[in-house]
């Protein structure tokens, strides 16, 4: 099977997709509702995604569900394509009033909203939900919400969290006021993600685990057994308040079954036993899917990248020339081939993915440096290695145990061998690789990892992955895997974030420069931007995809 056949097959699929999108747009929403409402969507995945507490779960698998079950004060617009980056009012009536100094946000809550258990959504629930983020030690409590006044105390002693001075409610005017310690242009993004979902005030102040919490969206969780299935049914108290923020769903129920391998999931969807598979189809089935099920495949670009973090504090990568040499030597086209061909991935040289805020086409590590990557430059790479005098050193690449990542590791091993290093690959369980490579105690020289956006802002890549604040030596949670900390660039990033509050376009230009400045020091080697393959059943219609929410499940129909 050549890459070319995959390409041809999947391009056909993409063309068909755009055709169906046009016909769907011709009907009005009411007509579509009348024609297609009802039925059950069956989803399938290899394994469950952990707790269904929206303030704790941090997996793509369940965020996709939380977007149509829970709501925050604001949310990302539910539309196809890049428009989804915009924030729209959700439980709030309108976008908040922000004070002149950018510190105070005042939200007016919509009237008449109800949770799925029938109780009213009030301002007290909003306040309690923000406190709960800290009380349950949510994963992003210390990284997204630490800018709220009183958050520091909450992080230190979660049990006594009040967020005093940070959040207050006024029941009479139905408003909630949030005060920050410093202006934050990304604050609305941060409260639009599921971790800031509004839950009933009486929700237990601990991880709900497998016990459903009442929802506000069109669906609610009926039952959850991580070994079998997660069942979502219509929320009887849901009344559509904004099509942009939380449109009503088409299917009457959505059942998520767990336990089939990716291979078996492909077959189940082909046989019509399931409507969608969560896991990515194995690369060896892509040609078959592309030819037999072309009209059931949707390929979409993700705002994400695969990259190689070099440990800048360990030999040989403590020498910038070695990091640059590897960047020059990597044949990104070969990696794209490993991932499934040009339809499924695109080579990248920048940290910010294409079409992401702040991205500017630029490639320093290629033959004829310019805007695009063209071919590896082995001569330059070998010269840099010779200069550094590090050839012959031992290098271990730590990858996880998925077949694609092992292949990427083996390829990188061959690159390092060509450069004169004594390279080996160490493949460990996918579930521990990500924390393992972060901990400096494990002395990982080089690894392969991926990063997906939480929200569309340049700092979500640059500052999170390579900022000084994300480097915690000796901790399993140190997402700056390279251990890279450049005070000067860090100061520029802080300035760019502040600039974004007043002039977002100028800030994005500055982010592009920061991206290039970082890549000059090459703490990482960006490899490619992956695309997402969604394989759906024949009967499934109105498939919409946005980079923020991925597939908008509630907007699809099965009858």
């Amino acid at each position, binding site marked *: 099977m050549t890459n070319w056949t995959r390409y041809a097959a999947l391009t056909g699929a993409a063309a068909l997709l755009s055709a169906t999108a046009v016909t769907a747009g011709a009907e009005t929403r009411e007509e579509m509702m009348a024609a297609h409402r009802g039925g059950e969507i069956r989803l399938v995945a290899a394994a469950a995604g952990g707790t269904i507490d929206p303030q704790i779960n941090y997996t793509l698998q369940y965020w996709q569900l939380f977007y149509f079950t829970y709501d925050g004060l604001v949310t990302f617009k539910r539309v196809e394509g890049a428009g989804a980056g915009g924030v729209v009012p959700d439980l709030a009536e309108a976008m908040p009033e922000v004070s002149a100094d950018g510190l105070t946000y005042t939200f007016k809550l919509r009237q008449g909203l109800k949770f799925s258990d029938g109780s009213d959504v009030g301002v007290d629930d909003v306040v309690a939900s923000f406190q709960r983020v800290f009380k349950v030690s949510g994963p992003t*409590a210390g990284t997204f919400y630490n800018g709220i006044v009183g958050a520091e105390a909450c*992080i230190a002693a979660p049990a006594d969290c009040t967020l005093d001075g940070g959040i207050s409610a006024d029941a009479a005017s139905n408003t909630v006021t949030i005060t920050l310690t410093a202006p934050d242009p990304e604050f609305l993004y941060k409260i639009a993600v599921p971790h800031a979902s509004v839950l009933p005030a009486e929700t237990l102040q601990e991880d709900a685990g497998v016990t459903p919490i009442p929802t506000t969206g069109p669906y609610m969780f009926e039952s959850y057994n991580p070994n079998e299935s997660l069942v979502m049914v219509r929320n009887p108290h849901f009344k559509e308040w904004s099509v942009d923020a939380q449109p009503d769903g088409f299917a009457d129920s959505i059942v998520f079954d767990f336990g*089939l391998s990716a291979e078996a999931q492909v077959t189940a969807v082909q046989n019509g*036993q399931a409507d969608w598979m969560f896991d990515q189809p194995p690369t060896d089935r892509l040609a078959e899917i592309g030819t037999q099920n072309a009209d059931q495949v949707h390929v979409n670009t993700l705002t994400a990248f695969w990259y190689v973090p070099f440990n800048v504090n360990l030999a040989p990568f403590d020498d910038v020339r070695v990091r640059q040499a590897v960047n020059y030597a990597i044949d990104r086209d070969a990696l794209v081939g490993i991932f499934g061909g040009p339809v499924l991935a695109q080579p990248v040289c920048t940290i910010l993915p294409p079409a992401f805020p702040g991205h500017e086409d630029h490639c320093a590590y290629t033959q004829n440096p310019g805007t695009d990557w063209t071919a590896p430059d082995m001569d330059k790479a070998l010269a840099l290695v010779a200069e550094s005098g590090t050839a012959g050193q031992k290098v271990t690449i730590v990858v996880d145990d998925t077949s694609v990542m092992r292949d990427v590791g083996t390829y990188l091993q061959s690159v390092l061998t060509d450069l004169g290093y004594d390279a080996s690959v160490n493949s460990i369980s996918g579930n*521990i690789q990500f924390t393992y490579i972060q901990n400096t105690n494990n002395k990982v020289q080089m690894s392969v990892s991926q990063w997906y956006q939480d929200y569309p802002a340049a700092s979500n890549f640059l500052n999170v992955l390579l900022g000084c604040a994300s480097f915690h030596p000796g901790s399993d949670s140190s997402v700056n895997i390279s251990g890279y900390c450049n005070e000067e660039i860090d100061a520029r990033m802080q300035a760019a974030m502040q600039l974004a509050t007043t002039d977002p376009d100028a800030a994005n230009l500055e982010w592009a420069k920061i991206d290039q400045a970082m890549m000059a020091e090459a703490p990482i080697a960006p490899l490619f931007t992956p695309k997402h393959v969604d394989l759906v059943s024949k009967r499934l219609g109105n498939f919409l995809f946005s980079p923020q929410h991925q597939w908008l499940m509630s907007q699809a129909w099965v009858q």
Partner: protein
Amino acid sequence: MLATVLARLMQMAFVMFGISVLVFLIFFATPGSDPAARIAGRNAAPETVEQIRHEFGFDRALPVQYGLMMKRLFITRDLTSFVNRGQKVIPQVLDAVPATLSLVAGAAVLWVLGSLFVGVVAAAMRDTVVDRGLMILSLIGISMPVFWLGEVMNLMSQSRFHDTWLFSWVPGLGYVPLSESLGGWFKALVIPWITLAVLYIGIYGRILRANLIEAYSEDYIRTARAKGLSPTRIMLRHALRTSLLPFVTMFGLDFGALVGGAALLTEVVFGLNGVGRLTFHALQNLDLPVILATVIYASFFVVAANALVDVLYAVIDPRVRK
């Protein structure tokens, strides 16, 4: 009798204790196994990771952690998973038992009948084409890895020939509880049963044949022949009965191990949510509470099966009874 039972129970407790300590120590000796950061989530602040570490008790001494975990597993019985937080492990294991038991019991019926047939026919028709053919088939059965055979079965029944008359009755992969539908349960399990049984038919058939042939050279068979008994009676009543002893021993051990989770590959390939698949996922996720629960459960079955085999011995072999 009471002493034997007590000794057995002691033995079981000792084995289970040893295994749980071993699992516990291996877990904490694995590099990168510290669950705190994984539970906290990606890019969690160090303070959050510390909170989680404290909340789950990972900052306490290992013996204390072991004691607490055992207490939550056996006494308060509220031990919960590290990965699917809030999910209690004991109900999780108990929920998985019916699928495993259905799979293994059905396969056991197939393999006992199948291997009896293969062993007896091959021994009776020793050195003929039939014998050779059966032995070659058995060898092929033993040599096929169960996960490969399972995937090939799936490829044929779910994918390539799914729409033909041959396999159109096959339901999607997964377990259907017996309480839900007898027909569904049967249909969902037929192919996994055959897949799991093939290996054991091969092994047991070959061993039974060898034992039967050995028995035929014994004095008591010659005596039976001299008395003028029919060949069928000699085979089934005299030779087979003594030859079944090693058969029963092996059956007990294999059955116990399979119910304990060794049918893991079959369960994973066919998407059956049994104990094996539970163990598989727990190992993949380094979910210590579930690993401990499934391992202790498995060791219980292995020891229990051993005890049962001893009792069966007494039934079959009069020399053991005394």
